[in-house]
């Protein structure tokens, strides 16, 4: 297949177009502006709908309406904007509507900066909006995966009638890489399948209602039980991860997205020096690959979690590996990016000295 040199943001947009996404609403925010501009161009070419919304809140609610009307719909933003979308994400989940939401993360909290970050992990995976809900969260680590995961996200969203999030960052979004950005086109180009709940006028059928409000006693609890069954199915079916040179590893680096790319280079460097180090890369951050990670644990294995945050995913690693003494953490915050050499140094120290501490590193 021919490869195209393209940015992660644009590859993400193209993945959506090829998955028959025909409704996009967005709002300008760095570092994802290329994506909104790309969708503006491509939706016109594909006779889809592009709306530059008045706010992130309006954008996610437009997506809510479009999804209810049967379209494959997407909105994208970056951290502060994703915070504004949380209300809408909760409503999508509560009303059982599919949609794809992309977060090209930047430094926070607050307005923060426009550098890459992974500090929205909790918000994405633990339910940033109100109520008991979950959504599949996929973390691309390359431009190719920005395309592939976005494409697949629409199928996952439709399969469960639930929002799906692509959790990327400013590094993956803005860098250019060669990628294969062609997938087999579906036959129905409007993206509407045979969704039995679509609001398209009650001609020849009973009226339909999309709602998450249930006031009668016990009804909302039953609705929640139904949602939980669906989330259990996702937990069972949607776990994704990658192992890299993890065989016989004394130390497993656990990292996703940009951090995983960097950690991979560190692993190669360390393996050259005959250090038994491997990488475990969660791809689905929710559902988290707890079991797969646990299987790598010999009982003596050490785990170094590398994140662009103060330590968020590390909590899931602790849930998988219950022996906290063997879990180390290296994090950069506020737009800082882990250095390949720092990770190499850190691994060497951990191999030598259990109590080693370096800058920005917590011994947990």
């Amino acid at each position, binding site marked *: 297949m021919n490869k195209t040199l393209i940015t992660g943001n644009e590859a993400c947009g193209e993945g959506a177009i090829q998955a028959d996404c*025909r*409704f996009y*609403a967005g709002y300008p925010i760095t570092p994802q502006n290329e994506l909104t501009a790309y969708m503006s161009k491509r939706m016109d070419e594909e006779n889809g*709908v592009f*709306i530059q*919304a*008045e*706010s992130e*809140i*309006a*954008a996610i*609610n*437009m*997506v*809510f*309406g*479009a*999804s*209810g*009307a*049967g*379209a494959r*719909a997407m909105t994208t933003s970056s951290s502060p904007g994703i915070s504004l979308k949380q*209300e*809408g994400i909760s*409503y999508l989940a509560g*009303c059982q509507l599919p949609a794809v939401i992309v977060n090209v993360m930047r430094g926070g909290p607050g307005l923060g900066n426009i550098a890459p970050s992974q500090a929205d992990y909790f918000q994405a995976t633990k339910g940033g909006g109100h109520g008991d809900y979950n959504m599949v969260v996929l973390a691309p680590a390359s431009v190719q995966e920005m395309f592939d995961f976005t494409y697949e996200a629409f199928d996952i969203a439709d399969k469960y009638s639930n929002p799906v999030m692509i959790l990327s960052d400013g590094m993956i979004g803005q860098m250019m890489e060669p990628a294969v950005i062609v997938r087999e086109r579906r036959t129905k180009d409007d993206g509407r399948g045979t969704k039995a709940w679509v*609001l*398209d*006028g*009650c*001609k*020849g*059928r009973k*009226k*339909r*209602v*999309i*709602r*998450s*409000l249930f*006031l009668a006693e016990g009804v909302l609890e039953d609705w929640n039980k139904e949602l939980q069954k669906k989330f259990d199915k996702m937990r069972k079916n949607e776990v994704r991860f990658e192992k890299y040179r993890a065989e016989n590893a004394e130390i497993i680096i656990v990292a996703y997205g940009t951090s995983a790319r960097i950690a991979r280079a560190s692993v190669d460097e360390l393996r050259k020096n005959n250090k038994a180090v491997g990488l475990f890369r969660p791809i689905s951050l929710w559902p988290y690959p707890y079991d797969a990670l646990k299987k790598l644990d010999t009982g003596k294995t050490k785990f170094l979690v590398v994140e662009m945050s103060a330590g968020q995913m590390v909590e899931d690693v602790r849930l998988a590996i219950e022996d906290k003494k063997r879990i180390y953490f290296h994090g950069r915050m506020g737009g800082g990016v882990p250095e390949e050499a720092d990770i190499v140094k850190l691994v060497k120290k951990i191999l030598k000295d259990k109590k080693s501490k370096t800058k920005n590193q917590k011994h947990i």
Partner: protein
Amino acid sequence: MVNEKSLTDRKMHYCPGCGHTLMHKIICDIIDELGIRERTIAVAPVGCAVIAYDYWNFDVTEAAHGRCPAVATGIKRVLPDKIVFTYQGDGDLAAIGTSEIIHAATRGENITVIFVNNGVYGMTGGQMAPTTMVGQKTATTQKGRKPERDGFPLKISEMLSVLPGVKYVERTALHNKPGVDKTRQALKKAFMMQMDNKGFSMVEVISACPTYGAKTIKEAYKKIDEEITKYYPLGVLKDTD
């Protein structure tokens, strides 16, 4: 199913004298008269009318508080041949959803907005709304709305009328028979404009909340006649047809 009516036989939960009961009936009458029930999609608000979908026999979606115009935008852009309307109170439309209504209007979305203005948050216990009259007592303005503390009532219809994307705005009131007749005419016109792809249309309906606005239904209607419609004058604010 063709002969089915738009109003269900579900008993409405609204208080005696509340405009919502009447407004629901008027909407359903007009939809039946225009024969558009099977291609109508409504967006229900958060507020007293939050379960409007129980009373309407056509497709309805809920929307987060104030977001009806954004949700309606999404639906209408995907299904331009359907008739899409939002039903919103003054808290929903004129406070938390001010941004959404103004921008749907200025984009000229071909939707119809039914804005039921009763000057108070009824659902949550009678708090001050953006449209509450100066001096009006509410749960959060117990000595009456004071402009120096609470600001002035918002005239959304006047604001929207100046936007080029807006094609038709009329304000009516539900406190007497001529007002009800005017409301019917206005709503019919608003729907017909959407059917003819003319663009954004809105009918603001001044409605009574006898539970929080007055001691009796009669007093509530009198207030509409003598006070409220002085600040919110009735009539066509914009008509490009």
